[in-house]
């Protein structure tokens, strides 16, 4: 049986599928340079770098970008702490309700974002909390926990329990063991989880529309441009920048977690 060779049909279908996933994104790069201002004309009548300069001088873009970066940074930090704690608890001991904890962590992304958003919004209203930077962060951290948690749980699972015992056996107490053995061993997984959480937060729009009040993160800014376009070329440029900015943490996370099996499976 020729099970080792892919059939032509399968190859074509796989290639077509990958192209379908990537061509629209490539288009964004072309449109960032178009000279056309009023419509989405294809092919572009000409190419220019002018809109990069225009975008650079737009304070509203800078404000939105800065807010997005700050929100993503703080949310990621919170998610990393909470996600790691949860992962440590779940992977280090068996206890009643473990499954429930996993479900609880996954729930904020398993349920449609609009539900998380509207639930938080009505809770803020009930508790009379005014919308602010922190209400955005609260929403983002909630759905970012799962990303860190997944990465950390996978690494904890691969880190042999005897490493912790060995550390304690050699005289290290729980805190020293955490500092000198656990942390170095899960660091790359945490960093990868953090990067993904950052990308997730940086891009989030659905929950944010409910928790943001008057402030605009970069995705909110883009959403407004999509619904009521003001200056299309600036949106094109911002779209391209956003793609590039989110690719970096994804590639970083990929390089941090690939090939870790050989390191963590030590001595087995």
């Amino acid at each position, binding site marked *: 049986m020729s099970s080792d060779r892919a059939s032509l049909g399968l190859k074509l279908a796989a290639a077509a599928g990958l192209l379908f996933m990537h061509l629209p994104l490539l288009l964004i790069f072309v449109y960032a340079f178009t000279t056309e201002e009023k419509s989405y004309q294809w092919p572009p009548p000409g190419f220019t770098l002018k809109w990069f300069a225009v975008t650079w001088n737009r304070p509203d873009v800078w404000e939105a970008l800065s807010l997005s970066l700050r929100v993503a940074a703080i949310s990621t930090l919170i998610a990393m702490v909470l996600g790691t704690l949860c992962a440590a608890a779940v992977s280090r001991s068996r206890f009643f309700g473990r499954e429930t904890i996993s479900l609880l962590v996954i729930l904020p992304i398993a349920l449609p974002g609009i539900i998380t958003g509207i639930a938080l919004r009505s809770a803020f209203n009930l508790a009379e909390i005014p919308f602010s930077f922190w209400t955005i962060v609260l929403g983002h951290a909630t759905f970012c926990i799962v990303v860190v948690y997944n990465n950390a749980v996978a690494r904890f699972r691969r880190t*042999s329990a*005897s*490493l912790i*015992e*060995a*550390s*304690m*056996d*050699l*005289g*290290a*107490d729980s805190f*020293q063991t955490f500092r*000198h*053995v656990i942390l*170095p*061993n899960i660091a790359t997984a945490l960093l990868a989880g953090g990067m993904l959480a950052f990308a997730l937060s940086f891009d989030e729009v659905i929950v944010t529309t409910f928790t943001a009040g008057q402030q605009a993160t970069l995705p909110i800014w883009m959403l407004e441009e999509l619904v009521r376009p003001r200056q299309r070329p600036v949106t094109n440029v911002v779209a391209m920048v956003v793609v590039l900015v989110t690719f970096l943490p994804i590639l970083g996370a990929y390089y941090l977690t690939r090939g870790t099996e*050989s*390191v*963590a499976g*030590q*001595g*087995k």
Partner: protein
Amino acid sequence: MTSAVRFSGVSRHYGAVRAVDAVDIDIAEGEFFAMLGPSGSGKTTCLRLIAGFEQPTAGRIEIFGQPAQGLPPYRRQVNTVFQDYALFPHLNVIDNVAYGLMIAGRGKAERHREAEAALEMVALPGYGGRKPSQLSGGQRQRVALARALVMRPKVLLLDEPLGALDLKLREAMQEELKALQRRLGITFVFVTHDQGEALSMADRVAVFNQGQIVQVGAPQDVYYRPQVPFVADFVGSSNVLPPALTERLTGTRRFASLRPEAVRLAADGLPAVLRSASFHGANTRAVFETEDAQIVALLPKGVEIPPEGSAVHLAWDAADLHLMTGAS
């Protein structure tokens, strides 16, 4: 003599599972003590109880006369060589060995000097800069040993430390471990499922079965004078003769053990039928069927092996038939 480790009625139950059940052990200072048994017999749990990774559900553990109750592993002067070595993958060899000294707050130069000396002791000088992943299984095992020894433990626990090594390396390490223990005078507690390993290295062997110690004694005792059929079978692959047969042969109704190498073919003796024979180089392993038991014999080179199915007679020296004390 002082006891290095003493168990009094120690049990470790997990719900209905009795991993360790009412065990008494007394390990003398400077002794090489082996805990031998099949997997799941409780030997590793006993080791973990000494290290402090597990807590007894009943009984008392003393280490050098001090109750170990409530003492975390990092407060016990006991160190462990783990079955999977448990080397820290993020540290290089020298920092692995110096880990315990670093935790104890010793300066970098001092701890590296001591770690290097420990590496020399296990014949790995100059390997300090490598990562554990760059070492072979045997080398990792030595690093794990050096890492434990550098702490100058009062008791060294070894959990199947040779299990992952190939046969030749294992034999070489057995010699080295034995020599090291003699030289350092540290109490070694050694867990293994390999009876050859236990017999060749230990001063005393405790045989575990189903959470209990079924026999403790010098290797010769355990090998030649098993007290229960389990020990006869597990330790020496001895023939276990059922009470009925023993009664006919000796007049005493007991289980008895008979070493395969003690059995010979004779003109007169116990009637038997040869079932199968297999050639093992220096000797031939022959399986005989008697009226109420199967008897295995190791026949030396030069003995003529009759065809399978032949009726023969088996004999042995009376001193080789050992009556057991245990009931079952």
